[in-house]
């Protein structure tokens, strides 16, 4: 079965620290990859997505993710986090040309001042 794994369930960082959240998927073939963010009390929002082309994808608010096909990974990064980045982050994947989006279990990020 297709699955998405997020290794870190809870991450606590100080402001200005660098962030990397891991995501692995189990699909073979073409895959579409996404990172969504859910700020406290708000709905899920798209941070960035990868369909094809440059494996380094830049999203909103200074986030980026790198698609490494050989490792089936799509890790999320940010060089310097801010307190306002406190949120839950979800990785999601869909088989290329498919319609079913599968989410990981999420990573709760807390950024301390």
């Amino acid at each position: 079965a297709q699955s998405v794994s997020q290794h870190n369930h809870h991450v606590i960082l100080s402001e200005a620290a660098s962030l990397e959240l891991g995501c692995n998927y189990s699909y073979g073939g073409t895959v579409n990859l996404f990172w969504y963010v859910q700020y406290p009390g708000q709905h899920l929002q798209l941070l960035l997505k990868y369909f094809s082309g440059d494996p380094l994808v830049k999203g909103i608010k200074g986030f980026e993710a790198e698609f490494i096909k050989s490792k089936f990974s799509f890790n999320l990064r940010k060089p310097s986090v801010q307190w306002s980045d406190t949120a839950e982050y979800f990785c999601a994947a869909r088989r290329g040309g498919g319609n079913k989006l599968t989410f990981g279990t999420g990573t709760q990020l807390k950024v301390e001042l």
Partner: protein
Amino acid sequence: EAGVAQSPRYKIIEKRQSVAFWCNPISGHATLYWYQQILGQGPKLLIQFQNNGVVDDSQLPKDRFSAERLKGVDSTLKIQPAKLEDSAVYLCASSLSMDNSPLHFGNGTRLTVT
């Protein structure tokens, strides 16, 4: 652009009761999704509509869950009868189509079954 609207925001019911959730997608979005998000887990797709037709309902517990999108716009998700394990946030999302369009999520309905 108005977002995906869901109601109610919160619902508390006793087990064996029935409950219904409503979703109004973004105008013009042909594809509508219902997800279930249990505490500590990622959202799980329950059912996907393309206009008023069902595309995928493989993970919908059909003995108790039902959903419809009669006119290809609004949708309702019903649970009858509810079980304790149905306690979750029910998310509605919509997208322009089924291809590479990103999903836009509503705020969800938090259901507590006691």
